[in-house]
């Protein structure tokens, strides 16, 4: 182990260009800290899986250096990297039993039989699969196979664990259960995990940090709370969660507040100002999440209007209200269903308000602009 000041993994200006000139990873600089759970999230083709594949050693960077614990990793073959990898389709060896699958990495490390048996047993206990050690993988359910794959990636005490959409093939309930189980293993073992997914709820529930990828670049990296509630650009805001989106023209900027007119000279609304945001007179996209829209007027909220309910959609634990607001247009609000509270009906006219801190102002299509510069 080297000094703890150095991050565990460093991607230093890494490019990956595939045959045909498609640049899937573009000047990537990424650090994974010791013991952290870092999730790479993004749409397909955004470079998140390629990033994992380069760290795993299945793909070679076209340019740049990847370092692990301070040492360059580029020329180290996969089998010497000592990373536990969980694949989307599990990649369990179908001709070996569960126990033999787990013993494989230990056999490759020439451990003696007694050590192998003990570690296989302990690891199967850890994922609660001891009863199934003599089964063939094809005799297991999807969730069980997933846990075997996880156990096999952990049994040899790897230096790090990489997971490529490991829960993608499971149904929703099992997926949520496994999220908690993976999180528990991460906390118990204290091992660094790099996790690739396109499911935002997975990213938000499990991670210490989330890196949002698009077009081979990290658009934002930070804690789940940061990325969700303080998106740094329009892409991040719309990829993570739901949004009301308003086109507006910026009228003025004060300390932390942007004033903008919706559409052409519509109602003035206030939004949160950030560095690099739109300047006065520029076109902007304003975004506010449905759960941030309140249906009463509140002191201290900068935006107060009136809206007429055009539709009420029941979702069990919450309702979604489609509102029509004069001078703004359609807005969607999301309210929890609370017993004893009066419901909402179509045609109701309600006070509508939201804080400027919950409304983000972005320049028009930042991704297009970065494209233009590249």
């Amino acid at each position, binding site marked *: 182990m080297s000094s703890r000041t150095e991050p565990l993994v460093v991607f230093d200006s890494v490019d990956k260009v595939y045959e045909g000139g498609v640049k899937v990873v573009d000047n990537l600089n990424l650090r994974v800290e010791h013991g952290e759970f870092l999730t790479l999230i993004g749409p397909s083709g955004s470079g998140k899986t390629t990033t994992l594949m380069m760290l795993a050693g*299945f793909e070679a960077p076209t340019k740049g250096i990847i370092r692990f614990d301070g040492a360059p990793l580029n020329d180290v073959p996969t089998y010497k990297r000592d990373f536990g990898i969980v694949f989307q389709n599990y990649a369990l060896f*179908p001709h070996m039993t569960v126990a033999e699958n787990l013993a494989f990495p230990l056999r490759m490390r020439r451990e003696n039989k007694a050590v192998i048996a003990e570690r296989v047993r302990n690891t199967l206990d850890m994922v609660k699969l001891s009863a199934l050690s003599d089964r063939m993988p094809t005799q297991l359910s999807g969730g069980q196979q997933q846990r075997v794959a996880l156990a096999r990636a952990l049994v040899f005490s790897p230096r790090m664990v990489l997971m490529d959409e490991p829960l993608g093939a499971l149904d929703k309930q099992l997926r949520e259960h496994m999220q908690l189980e993976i999180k528990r293993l991460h906390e118990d073992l204290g091992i660094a995990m790099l996790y690739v997914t396109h499911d935002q709820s997975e990213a938000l529930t499990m991670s210490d940090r989330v890196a949002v990828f698009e077009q081979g670049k990290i658009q934002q990296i930070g804690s789940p709370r940061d990325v969700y509630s303080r998106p740094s650009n329009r892409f991040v805001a719309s990829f993570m969660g739901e949004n009301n989106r308003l086109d507006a023209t910026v009228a003025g900027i004060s300390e932390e507040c942007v004033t903008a007119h919706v559409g052409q000279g519509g109602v003035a609304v206030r939004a949160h100002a950030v560095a690099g945001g739109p300047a006065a007179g520029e076109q902007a996209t304003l975004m506010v999440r449905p759960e941030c829209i309140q249906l009463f007027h509140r002191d201290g909220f900068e935006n107060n209007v009136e809206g007429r309910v055009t539709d009420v959609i029941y979702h069990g634990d919450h309702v979604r209200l489609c509102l029509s607001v004069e001078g703004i247009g359609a807005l969607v609000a999301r309210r929890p269903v609370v017993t004893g509270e009066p419901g909402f009906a179509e045609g109701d006219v309600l006070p509508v308000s939201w804080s400027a801190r919950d409304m983000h102002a972005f320049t028009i299509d930042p991704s297009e602009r970065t494209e233009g510069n590249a």
Partner: protein
Amino acid sequence: MTRIATKVFAWIVLAFLVAPLLAIFPLSFSSGTILTLPVPGYSLQWYEEFFLNDRWLDATRNSFIVGTATMVLATLLGTTAAYGLNMSNFRGKQIVLVLLSMPMVVPLIVTAASMFLAFSAVGLANTLWGLVIAHTIIATPYVVITVLASLQTFDPNLMRGALSLGAPPVTAFREVVLPMILPGVAAGAIFAFATSFDELVIAIFITGPGEFTLPRQMFAGLREFLSPTIAAAAVIMILLSFVLLFVSEAVRRRGEKLVARRANQ
């Protein structure tokens, strides 16, 4: 009526295919000294001749040596070639595939003649090793094809999984890839052996006396002394071919079961 006609027709076709082959059986048990039907009486003399004559025994031994060596070489080359082709994607892959199957489509006499010329130049003509190399060239495509077929269902992530778990590439191939594609490899190996065991044209060009294989010895027997020993040899070859056929069928069924079991889950 039509059903009976279909049955009769089927039997006629079968008889057409098999009857000439069956004619050799009574001939091999002939008590006469020339190859004619009907046989004057029955005897095992030609089998005795086969098993006591050094020429026939040497030819049999040579056939097994060449067949086994061809099988080993062609299986090794064909399996690695198929795996490489399956795992990679490069420009000209189709051309390589066509080139690999060339020996199957080029007329054997052309292959044989060119090999004779080439091998003479490097001193491989008239040697068993020359014949092994020539047979390996024509047998390898069969292995490539059977192994490529069994790789169709192979999940490349298994190889990646094995590498990530600390297996060097050769070990990973042996422990994970090979068990999965074994039926294809075994079928290819049997094809390779059979190809060499049956082959005459190249053997005519490349082997001299002393290196004759069984088909070459039979050919010599036909031309030089029309002895019914060649009928006995033919029957022995037919029986060996049957054994190979059954082995390859058993391998194929085992492979099918394996695939079915995987697919059922």
